[in-house]
């Protein structure tokens, strides 16, 4: 693998130092800015060693699930050396970002579109894909179109618009959107890497993931690991919103502490009721736990995961039950309405949580809600029921004192006093 690094050294500029990597070329980077900052990338040259380099880098997916990137690549038939590989492979850059509290993909595609394009081209070269897609929202398509027009090597990338729905970025919904125009998940027995778009082996990666792939292609895994920790290497993008002085998209090292990220955005620990980590399918962290890192291992004990790097700060004057009830209602409305337990269960979960939030003093409500949330898990064609269930159960535990107060006819938050 040192070979790759050496080869790349010939054409590379100095690698970015510190945690500013993805935005090192400045805001709205043109192709000229991009090349001046990162150097050229010879895709054919890096392709043969890329997957091993990704494996050594420890890069995980930045779209939500946090799956090891090298393993997803490794599941492609060409990589497995499968002789059954008949149809040509597909690579899709996923920039749908359906999470209302996430802005990082949009920001990345606006400020560093060329890194995403590089990553897509490098990934396609590595799995010998002949079909390349970039799937994102209308606003980001504008940035991408402009970027593609600035370079000669990106003409093969087809652009597909993602609707502004919560589940438009789910992997099978992405494939479905490109194939049929309907951005809703489909039932799947096997993996997309075996049979995806038009039955072709299909690799779907988040746009931030691909931007990291572009950097690892250039500078190698040791460089990638020079930020973050052994366990949580590299950097990740986060979107911070809520009770902060300004909503922000930041690039942070893999071992950044949540409280430090929040403080840098103007949040004050004593004025926080809770932090929703990982978006609307995520989990709440209460203020005493904010010293943990924003990493898979550190968050596991709290039932949370970094997901797409979303941190929503709920101010201490706000009711977490009310806020979560609104989110669960939103999620229920965003169900594609295809799978019974999701279609019927989520609205009931929303209603139960709304009753708890508005001070209904029936002590059975929380138990019913927990049972209903547990019952929908694993019973849909996508993870929407699981994610919604995770949020509800986390709400009940993080804001248990608030729920108790509601049962006594009280409220702990200034908002309702």
């Amino acid at each position, binding site marked *: 693998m040192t070979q790759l690094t050496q080869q790349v050294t010939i054409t590379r500029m100095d690698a970015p130092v510190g945690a500013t990597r993805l935005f090192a070329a400045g805001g709205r980077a043109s192709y000229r800015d991009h090349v001046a900052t990162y150097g050229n990338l010879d895709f054919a040259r890096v392709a043969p060693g890329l997957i091993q380099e990704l494996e050594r880098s420890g890069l995980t997916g930045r779209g939500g699930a946090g799956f090891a990137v090298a393993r997803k690549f490794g599941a492609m038939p060409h990589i497995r050396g499968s002789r059954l590989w008949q149809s040509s492979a597909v690579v899709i850059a996923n920039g749908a970002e359906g999470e209302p509290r996430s802005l990082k993909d949009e920001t990345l595609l606006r400020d560093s579109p060329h890194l995403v394009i590089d990553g897509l081209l490098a990934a396609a070269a590595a799995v010998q894909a002949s079909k390349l897609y970039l799937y994102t929202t209308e606003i980001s398509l504008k940035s991408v179109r402009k970027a593609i027009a600035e370079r000669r090597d990106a003409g093969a990338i087809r652009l597909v618009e993602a609707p502004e729905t919560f589940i438009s970025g789910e992997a099978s919904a992405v494939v479905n959107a490109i194939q049929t125009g309907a951005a809703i998940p489909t039932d799947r027995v096997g993996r997309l890497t075996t049979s995806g778009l038009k039955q072709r082996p299909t690799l779907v990666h988040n746009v931030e993931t691909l931007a990291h792939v572009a950097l690892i292609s250039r500078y190698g895994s040791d460089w990638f690991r020079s930020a973050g920790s052994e366990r949580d290497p590299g950097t990740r993008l986060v979107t911070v919103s809520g009770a902060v002085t300004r909503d922000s998209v930041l690039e942070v090292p893999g071992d950044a502490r949540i409280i430090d990220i929040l403080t840098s955005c103007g949040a004050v620990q004593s004025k926080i009721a809770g932090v929703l980590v990982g978006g609307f399918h995520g989990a709440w962290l209460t203020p005493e736990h904010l010293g943990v890192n924003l990493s898979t291992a550190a968050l596991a004990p709290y039932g949370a995961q970094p997901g797409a790097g979303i941190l929503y700060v709920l101010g201490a004057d706000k009711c977490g039950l009310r806020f979560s009830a609104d989110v669960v209602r939103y999620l229920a409305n965003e169900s594609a309405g295809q799978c*019974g337990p999701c279609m019927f269960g989520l609205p009931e979960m929303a209603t139960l949580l709304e009753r708890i939030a508005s001070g209904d003093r029936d002590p059975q409500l929380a138990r019913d809600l927990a049972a209903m949330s547990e019952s929908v898990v694993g019973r849909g064609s996508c993870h929407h029921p699981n994610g919604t269930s995770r949020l509800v159960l986390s709400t009940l535990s993080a804001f248990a004192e608030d729920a108790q107060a509601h049962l006594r006819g009280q409220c702990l938050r200034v908002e309702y006093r």
Partner: protein
Amino acid sequence: MATVPNRYRLHIDWTKCDGRGLCTELLPDLLGRDKWGYPVALTEERGSRSDVFIPGSRLEAATDAVNLCPLIALALIAPTAKR
């Protein structure tokens, strides 16, 4: 990735199933019904709620369910071949 046990599984396509419960009548020992009528795996093994493990003794009934489900929502998945 977790290794998949080497057993037959009954896959439920939730996007097709409308919960009329024919499968739950054929496999009452393996499938219950929720309050809306949708099948619920009774064996609470991890990750088996959409791909319900089928013991060899129930393969025939499971095959019937696959063939009789009015919405073609069921499929029998053969044990995964060793890779």
